[in-house]
C-alpha cells in the first residue's frame, strides 16, 4: 500500500546500506549529531509481546530525537477484543502517527502492518522471523570493537529455531563479511541453515574453538515444557557458556547476549559480568542504532 520507507528485515540489505546505518549510529553514539529530527512527530510503540529493553530503547531514541512517543499495549487496547492486526494498525495510523514500531509474537506481522497502512513501519521483532534493530546493534557493537567484521567468525548459540535475533544476525553478519557458526541442541536447530560462510554444529566446544565472538541466545523456558531438551541442568552443561568454556576462548574474543539473560542457564553469571561481556554496551548502543533507524524511515 505505502511507498514509505520501512525497516522490516535485514535480509536483502546490502553491505553499503548496512554500513550507512552503522555510520550514522556511530555519529549519534559519539554525540556528533544532536538533531531533533522528529520534533513534532508521533512515534507509536505497538507491542503485542512483553519487552522491556527494546521498547525502552526505541522510546529513548524517539524522545531524544524530539518525537512524542505513544505506547500502545495489547492489554490496554482493543486487540484483546478480537480486533484484527490490520484494523488496529489502521486505527493507530489514523491518529496521525509518523512511525509505527511493532513487536508481535508471530512471524510476518510487521510486514502485514507495512502493507496495510500509509505510515513507516519498524519491525521491533516478529515471531521467529527477524529482529532487525537487534541485529544491527549487535553488528554495531562488534564493529566498534573490531573496526570491521570482515573475516571474523561469530558463534550464535542456543535456541536458533525460535530465535528472530539469530536470523537477523545471520543476514547482517554475512552481509558485512563475517562467518557464522550456529550451535545448539539438535532439536533447536532448524534445517537448511548451512550455506557459504555458515556452518552448524551441536558441539559447543568445537563451535567456540576459533571464534572471535559468541552470541548467546536466550532460552525460552517454555521450550523445556515442550520437551525440546531434557532439563535446564543438561542444557547448561552442554550448551551453556560456563566460566570454564569462556576461559578457553581466544584471548580477545567477546560475548554478547540480546537479553534478558537467564543467568546460570545459557550464560554463567561470572561470564555475563566478566570482561569479555559486551552485554551492557549492546544496550547502550541500541539507542544510537535505533536513532539512526528512526531517522532513516522518517
Amino acid at each position, binding site marked *: 500500500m505505502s511507498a514509505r520507507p520501512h525497516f522490516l528485515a535485514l*535480509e536483502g540489505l546490502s553491505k553499503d546500506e548496512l554500513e550507512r546505518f552503522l555510520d550514522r549510529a556511530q555519529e549519534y553514539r559519539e554525540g556528533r549529531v544532536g538533531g531533533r529530527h522528529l520534533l513534532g512527530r508521533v512515534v507509536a510503540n505497538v507491542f503485542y509481546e512483553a519487552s522491556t529493553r527494546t521498547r525502552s530503547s526505541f522510546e529513548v531514541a524517539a524522545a531524544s530525537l524530539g518525537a512524542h512517543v505513544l505506547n500502545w499495549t495489547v492489554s490496554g487496547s482493543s486487540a484483546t477484543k478480537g480486533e*484484527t*492486526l*490490520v*484494523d488496529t494498525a489502521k486505527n493507530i495510523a489514523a491518529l496521525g502517527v509518523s512511525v509505527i514500531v511493532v513487536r*508481535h509474537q*508471530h*512471524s*510476518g*506481522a510487521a*510486514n*502485514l502492518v507495512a502493507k*496495510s497502512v500509509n505510515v513507516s513501519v519498524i519491525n521491533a521483532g*516478529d*515471531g*521467529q*522471523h*527477524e529482529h532487525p534493530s537487534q541485529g544491527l546493534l549487535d553488528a554495531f557493537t562488534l564493529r566498534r570493537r573490531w573496526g570491521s567484521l570482515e573475516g571474523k567468525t561469530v558463534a550464535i548459540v542456543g535456541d536458533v*529455531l525460535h530465535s*528472530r535475533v539469530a*536470523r537477523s544476525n545471520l543476514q547482517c553478519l554475512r552481509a558485512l563479511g563475517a562467518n557464522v557458526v550456529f550451535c545448539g541442541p539438535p532439536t533447536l536447530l*532448524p*534445517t*537448511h*541453515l548451512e550455506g557459504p560462510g555458515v556452518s552448524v554444529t551441536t558441539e559447543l566446544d568445537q563451535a567456540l574453538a576459533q571464534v572471535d565472538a559468541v552470541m548467546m541466545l536466550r532460552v525460552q523456558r517454555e521450550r523445556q515444557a515442550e520437551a525440546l531438551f531434557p532439563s535446564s541442568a543438561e542444557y547448561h552443561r552442554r550448551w551453556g557458556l560456563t566460566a570454564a568454556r569462556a576461559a578457553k576462548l581466544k584471548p580477545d574474543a567477546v560475548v554478547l547476549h540480546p537479553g534478558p539473560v537467564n543467568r546460570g542457564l545459557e550464560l554463567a553469571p561470572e561470564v555475563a559480568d566478566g570482561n569479555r561481556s559486551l552485554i551492557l554496551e549492546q544496550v547502550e548502543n541500541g539507542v544510537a542504532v535505533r536513532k539512526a533507524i528512526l531517522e532513516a524511515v522518517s
Partner: protein
Amino acid sequence: MSALFLRQGRVIDPSSGVDQVLDLRISSGTVLEVGAGLQARSERVIEARDLWVVPGLVDLRCTLRGPDDVEAALAGGLTAVLLTPESPKIASDRLQVRQAPPLTRDLKGDELGEVPEGAPVLSNGFSPLVRGGVLRRALQYARPLGALVMVHPEDPSISTRGLLGEGPTATRLGLLGVPAAAETSIVARDLEVLRSTGGRLHFSHLTCARSVELVREAKKNGLAVTCDVTAHHVSLDDTTANDFSLLARVWPPLRSAADVAGLREGLLDGTIDAIASDHQRVDVLDQEHAFEQSAPGVDAYGQFVKRVMALGLPPKRLVELLSTGPAKLAGLGARRLSRDSRADVTIIDPATLSVHATIAAGELRYLQGRTLP
C-alpha cells in the same frame, strides 16, 4: 429443460476411448447424440471449435458455505462435488452435491462414525487419525460395505504447530517447518494396516514425493489404495510463502520444488487418482492477521482448471484426474460422453487454460465468464 448443441469441439472421453472433433447433442439432461457432421436443430448452439469438450469435472473434496460457492464451483468447471464432513450442508439444484459422512464420531478419531446406507465414501476430513487401531477397525468395518475410507495422513505430534513444509524458506521466514515425516510416517503406517485388513483406503491431499513413492509401491503390490493431490500442491512450492503471502496459508502445507516434481510424476504415471480443489474460502477478517493467525484455506475454483491445465498433462490423463477418477472414488458412477449418459459436460479452452462453459445435468450453468440462471 434445455436443448444444447455443442459444435465441433474436441471431445475427450476416456471411458469410450474417444478423442476427436465431434458434435454433441444434449436434451432433457441427457446426451442424445455424439458424432461427426451432425446438424443443429432448434437447440442453443455452443461453438466449440478449438475447445476441449470433456465429461463434467468432479471435485473430490471441498467446503462450500453457500450459493456463492456453488456458483464459483460451476464457473470453475465443476459439475459435481463431494463435500468434506466438516462442510456446512448445502443443497443445490444447479450442482450435484454429495457429502462424505464422518469416518469417526465428530471426526475425533476415537469411535467409528455411523455409516449411512449405501455410503460410497467415509471421510475423516481434515482431521488426522492419530490412533492406528481406529483406522484398522474402520477398514475392517467398511470392507464388506465396499466403502472407500478417506483419510488425511498426518501425525500431529510431528507437524506440531508447523506452518510450511520444512525447508530453507520456512527457516528463513521463521515459520515453523512441517517435517515430511508428519505425512509419510502415517502413509507408511496406514499402508501396513491396509495390507492386514483389506478394504479400500484413500489418502487425501498428499504433499510429499516420498508419499507418492510409498503409494506407487503399494499399488504395485496390489493393495487397494488410491490418493489425490490438490491443484495448488502440484502448482506451488514453499517459496510461495516469501513475503508471507497468504497464498501459502494452506493445510496441508506447501512443500519443496522436489516434492512438487514428485507429485507431478505421480500424476503422469497413474499413482495419483484425482486432483481435488480443497476449496475453502477464508473470510476477509481471518486474513487480517499475521500468517500464523490467519485461517488456512484456499479460494480454489478461480484457479483450479488453470493450474491443472498449466501442467501440460496428456488430455486423456487430465480428464481421468479431474472427472472420471474422482467420480469413481466419490461413488458417482462412470462419467462419460456417450449416447444416453447424463449430460455433465465441461468445455475448456486450451489456449487460455480456462473454463469456457459448464453444463450440469444438461443445463448450461456457465458460459464465458457469465453465470446463467
